[in-house]
Every structure is written in C-alpha cells, then in structure tokens.
C-alpha cells in the first residue's frame, strides 16, 4: 500500500482515501486532500521533514507522520 | 505641604491603577488581558 509519505519530489499522485480517524484525518480532508484529488509533491524540508505539496492550487505543508494516513492510488 | 500633595497624587495614581484592574476584571478581562484576543486561552473567565 503506497502512501503520500512514499511519494517522491516532483511526482504527481492521486489519492485513494484518507485512513485513520478523528481530528487529524478531518483536518487533512478539510484542507482538500480527499478521494481522487491530485497532489503534486513540491519539495521536502531541508532537514527531511515535513513535505510541501500543491493541492487544489495552493501550498500545504504536511508532516511525514501525517502523510502516512493518505493512501494513494496504485499505478498512476 | 509638598509631602501632602505628592502623597495625594500618589494615592490617586495607585487607586487609578487598582481601579483599572478591577474594571477590566468586571468586563471579563483578566489583568493579564491586554485586549488582544489573538490566542486568547479564555483563562480569564
């Protein structure tokens, strides 16, 4: 199972679903990371975490531990 | 004479300071509240 954590810089990925529950999950979804949305991985912070992505036309910073909850579609 | 005037002024200033704290409290403000509601923890209520 591939998650947003595994995605490489410069890649554009498609979301299958957001796992987990509660506040963190809701927050991730509220920020626009929902089923079928495309995410472009812009860069990784100089110290290796967090990750900056472009989603729905704006920049978002996500910690790798939170990015793990975002499950990606395979083979796209 | 001078002493009396200075003491009166001093008492006025101190009571004004105390009153402003009490007034702020009555308005629901904590003495620690500067009226800047950014990040107000609401600890004043």
């Amino acid at each position, binding site marked *: 199972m591939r998650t947003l954590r595994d995605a490489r810089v410069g890649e554009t990925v498609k979301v299958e679903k957001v796992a987990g529950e509660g506040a963190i999950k809701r927050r991730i979804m*509220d920020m626009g990371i929902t089923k079928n949305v495309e995410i472009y991985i812009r860069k990784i912070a100089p110290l290796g*975490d967090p990750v*900056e992505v472009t989603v729905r036309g704006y920049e*978002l910073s996500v910690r790798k531990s939170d990015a793990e909850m975002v499950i990606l579609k395979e083979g796209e | 004479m001078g002493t009396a005037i200075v003491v009166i002024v001093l008492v006025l200033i101190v009571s004004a300071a105390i009153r402003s704290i009490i007034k702020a409290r009555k308005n629901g403000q904590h003495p*620690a509240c500067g009226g800047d*509601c950014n990040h107000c923890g609401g600890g*004043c209520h």
Partner: protein
Amino acid sequence: MGIRIALAGNPNCGKTTLFNALTGSNQFVGNWPGVTVEYKEGKYKGEKEVTIVDLPGIYSLSPYTLEEVVSRNYLIDERPDAIINVIDGTNLERNLYLTTQIMEVGIPVVVAINMMDVVEKNGDKINTGKLSEEIGVPVVEISALKNKGLSDIVNKAIDAAKEAKPQAPKHRFNGSVEHAFAHIEELCLHDIADENLQRWYSIKLFERDEKVQEKLGLSQEVISHIEKDIQSCEQELDDDAESIITGERYNYIGTIIGDCVKKAAVGLSSSDKIDRVLTNRWLALPIFALVMWLVYYISVTTVGTWATDWANDGVFGDGWHLFAIGSADYNDAAEEFAANQIIVDGYDVYVEENGTEPTGDFEYPVEDEETLEVTYETASLEDYEAAKAYVESNEEPDPANYGVWVPGVPVLVGNLLESLNVNEIVSGLILDGIVAGVGAVLGFVPQIFVLFIFLAFLESCGYMARVAFIMDRIFRRFGLSGKSFIPMLIGTGCGIPGIMASRTIESDRDRKMTIMTTTFIPCGAKLPFIAMVAGAIFGGASWVAPSAYFLGIFAIIVSGVMLKKTKLFAGDPAPFVMELPAYHWPTLGNVLRSMWERGWSFIKKAGTIILLSTIVVWFTTFFGFTADGFRMLAEDEIDMSILASIGKAFAWIFIPLGFGHWEATVASITGLVAKENIVGTLGIIYSASGDVYGAMNAAFTAASGFAFLAFNLLCAPCFAAMGAIKREMNSAKWFWTAIGYQCGFAWVIGLISYQVGKVFTGEGFTVGTIFGIAAICILIYGIFRKDKYKAN
C-alpha cells in the same frame, strides 16, 4: 433594530483587513494561518445600527479546533442577521469548501471575493455572475486593501439581513446520503425551534458530530438508530461518513470551478520563485540563519541595545545628550577624569591602611561597575603626581557642558520632590521604588518595539510559516514547534520579548511549552550575575559563562522531553497540516499597527500590576524592625528588612542545595524583581567586610556556588517576564504551573549540582549525595519513560 453581520472566511483571506476597513477598528492582520481566535466586533463606519463581527479564520466548521468551535457556536447560538463570507479569489477551491458549510446554517449569506486585483494580475478570470447563479447567493468582487466594493458588499448584506430569508443551499449530496438526512430529520429534528437549522443538524448528526449530539440532548436510543442509517449509507458508498461529506463537497466545488473560472497558463508566480530560493534544500538553512542573525543583531545587539541603554541610562537614568551630540566627547573626558581620580583615591587608601605614604610603586583597587569585581593595578609615584595634578587642574566633567543635556526622569522627579520639600520616606518610595522599578521595565519598551516590527514583518510577508517548515523536524522532538527557535533566540537578549514572540506559534500546546522553557536561556540581565559568580567563587574560570548557556539549552531539551509525556501536554499531537501562504509585501500600516498593539499591552501592564508590585518590594526592602523599633532603613541595613526576615524564614529550602543562608535567599528574591539585582543585593549584603568577592568566596563552596548559579538561572524569571508569561498564558492555572515548574526544576538541578558536585570537589560522599543521584535517576526516568498518553 440593529443588524449584526458576521465576517467568516479562511485564514489569510483578507478578512481582518476587510474588518478594519469597514469599522476603522484596530486589529492585527497577519499572513499566518490562525491569527484571530476570539471574534471581534465593530460598528460599520457611519451606521451605528450595523454591527460587524469578525470571526476567526477557519477552514471548516468541524468540531475539532478551538477556532472552528468558537465560530460555529457563534453562528448557531447567536444567530447573526447575515454572514459575509470572505473568499480569497486566488484560491477559490479551498475557500468555497467553507462556503458550502456556511450556507447550511440557515442564515442569509453574501459572498465577497477578495484579492481580485491579484487574480487579474495573474491573468485568471472569475465569472462572478455565473458563480452567484450556481451557488444561489449574491457574489461581489472586492479589494479590502484598496477599498473597492466595500459599501456594495455591506449594502447587499444589509438587504439580505432585512429580507431575513436564508437561501436554501443548492448543493445536494448523493441520493442515499440525502435519504439518510431525511431519516435523521424525521427521527429527531422535526420539532426544533428554528427550522432553518434542520439541514445543518442533520448533516452534523450524519458526521457523528459529538458536540451536536450532546447539544440536542439525544438519547442513546436515538443515536443508535441514527447510527444504523449512517452505517447502511457508509456500506453502500464504501467510505466513512466524514469522508463522504467532505469528498462530495469538494467534488461539487470542482464542477462549479470548471464552469466559472478560467485559469491563465500556469507559470511560476513570483511567490513561487521566492520560495524556490528561501526553502531550497541547500540554501534554506543558511538563509534562515542569516535572517535570524539579522533579527537578533538589530533588535538585540545594535538598535535594541542603543534603545535600551538610552531608555535605562538616559530616560530612566541620569539623563542623555540630545541626538547624542557631545556624548562621545563627554565620555572621553569623564573616563579620563575617572582614571586619574582612581589613582588619587588609591593613594589615599594606601596612606590610610599603612599609616605612611608609599615610597615607591603602590597598588590600588579598581572595581568593575557591573560585576563588582575588584582588581588591583600598580601605579608609580610619578603616575600619582600626574594624576593629582590632572584632578586638581580639571573639574569633574559635567555632561551639561557637552551638547544639549536632557536630564533623566529620576533626576527630574528627584528635583521636583526636593523643591517641594517632600518627606524622605515618600521620595524614597517614588524614586527607589516606583521610578526605579517601573523605569526598569519600561526601559525594555524600545527594544520590544524594534523586535515586534520584525516579527510583524516576518509574519505578514509569509516567511514565518516557512520558519516552521524548515525547523519543525528538530523542535518537534522536544514538544516544541519549529517557530520556538525565535523566542529562544530573542530570549538570550531579554526574556520578555522572547516570551511575547511565542505568540506566532499557532498550536496551543507548542506555544505553552515554549513559554515555559524560553526563560531557561540566560538573558542579558543574568550576565553580570554569571560573571560575578565566576569571578568570586570560581576565580574567574572561563568555563562558567558557557556552562550557563549549556545549562539553559539542557534545561529546555530535558523539560521539553519530560513535559511532553505528562498529563499537562497529553492528547493527540496537533496535526501539522499547515498552509504555506503566498509571499506578499506587507503594508506598512499593518506592520506598525501590529507592533503598536503588542507593545502597548506591555506598557499598560507596567502602569498597573508592575507599579503595584514595585511598591510592595520597595516597602519590604527598606522597612524593618530594628533595635529602635519599626522604621525605614538605610541602604546597608538590608539585613534588618522585612525582606531579610522573609529570607531567613525561607532559607531552609536551600539547605539541600548548599546555600541555606538568608543572604543567598534574599538575593534570589530580589532577583525576581530584576535579575541584575542579584549582583546589587549581594554587593550590599557582603560589603560590610569591604571585600565582596572574598566574602562570597567564603560563603560558598564550588559545589554550592554552582548550585546557587544554576538555581537562579533556571528559577522563575523577573517580575516583568513573569508578567509576560501570565499575559501569554492568559490563564492563572497555566501561569502558576509554569512558574512552579521552573522553580521546581531549578531546585532539582541545584540539588544535583551541589550534592553530586560535592563528590568531585573533594567534599566527600554524604547521605545527601544519594538524594542527588536519586534526583538524576528521576530525571532520566522522566526522559525515557514510555509516553502513555501517546495514541499510537
């Protein structure tokens, strides 16, 4: 009848700028997610009937964050007459997500698309007429910054409020979801008072919103009934309820955007280009270091120091030269005169001590003004003759003869009191108590203002969010935020602006942790004390000063790791899913307004609480019971003061730390007023013997001396900084927790320093050493124990 209009929208959508433009009220605008937590009210310019309420910037109406709960409670419970939904035109998609939710609360909504100037500049086109048609509410283009479309949007909102007919949201969810809503409505919502709220409640119940379940007072039976409806729907759509709702909202928005927005060809915007450099893999850290160094260099070492010196030594000192003209000449002259004077005095001291005049070279003492350290220098008889001739032929330089001399507040007040012939007790209270105490605090105001200009600028231009992005990885380990770096850096200069800088941290827990640990870093006022301990007790050893900084960093890391695992900071970690707003040039007005609001609250505090506490401290320092009854004391009678009695009563606390005498206790207490007072107090107390450093050396061993140093560096900071802690914590409970923790932690570190240090300094292994080792074990346990509150 008055009309209330609420402003709602995402963080950074320009909502606060709009609020200021509409009401003329003062409020900070920052390019930082989550600048306002509580809502603010203001009257619409020129129309007293219309009240405008500024809600916090939010992304959603979920029940999970404080800002969201505040906003939705306001909308649901207070029922404003209309809502202006402010939308950032450059980011329509995410902003409309909130719009879909706001439209469900059953209040008339008008949409204001802000930042249209930027949209046009980017070459994008938004068809507002079409948008208005699709979502079913009026849509107005505005530019809050340039005052465009403001009266139009308010008039539309007033009209909508007067009509009082909320538009039914045009958006319909998937058939089976709507079916579930219908069931829920039928089951428990058909008899609620305000039928406009029916749809809102049914959606929230579908999302299993516990706050709404509680509010409606649903029985367990009803909840489990609803649960069945939800589950069958979840099964059919193969997703959980929250995901279904969120996903459908965004899908719906996707179709609207497709119809109404034409994006220009995607190229790199200037914000993207800036960001490429500022958060570049290799350049980010050096640039960050440079920015931090600049902030520190300007606000703490150069401009900040000039400003603080001017305020402390000038305005609240003897006085200052207007525009600094003549200042340098005066200093040269004064220095030369003092250097000669000291040789002449040294000669007299020699004569007094030896009964005869020196026949050859003689030694004379030189005392350092800040640390009270006494060094000896040698002068020949020729030096003495030359010095004597200089002192006799020159008068002590008068600053008033150089440039325009402006006397300081204490001098002016002193002269005034003298001319009024005021009683010496009253003038003592005013000069030594109030003017000295409040002045010491106000002396930091210029530095705070300089610092706040920088913070406001970094915040509003968008770099602060990048600071968090760059530094998050390191600080997260200690339960701190990436942005905790700034308060701690500033804290090396002065803890007060350091603590106040913590408010740029948006996560409540990270901010509280930062406030609790920032003052562990030695501030500028602690430096003379560190130098004094190093000189008097450790013979000027060079390792003492660096060890103070290492101790501070060690205390922050250990405290962070330990506190993170306690109940205080328990709970799920706040998600660090943060918007990185586009860079933009902040307006001067916004930066200055932010600086002024923050600085003013500090000044106000100095005028009230700090004023009162200085009076109390003055009283306990200068009054006491003597052989001839209760009276005012001279400066060298501090051992009879009320403060000394308090010191004697509490000295036992420090017996395990090796300095259980009242002198050290009193010094620690006066250190609470201002840390540089420790030096002054010790100077007065130990001056009786004539050799302060010698007396201190006799009173402390190496181990107890280091314990004394460690305790005073780590314990509660000065009153002004405590005031800042209280102000930023905004809760009595958290304030006392912070102060209590700092003092407790300082005590434990002092205990370890003394009891374990004793073994190494040859004082031997005692029962106390076992307690010292036990304390180390407890710290290690606190650091490495399992975090039982951690969710996974």
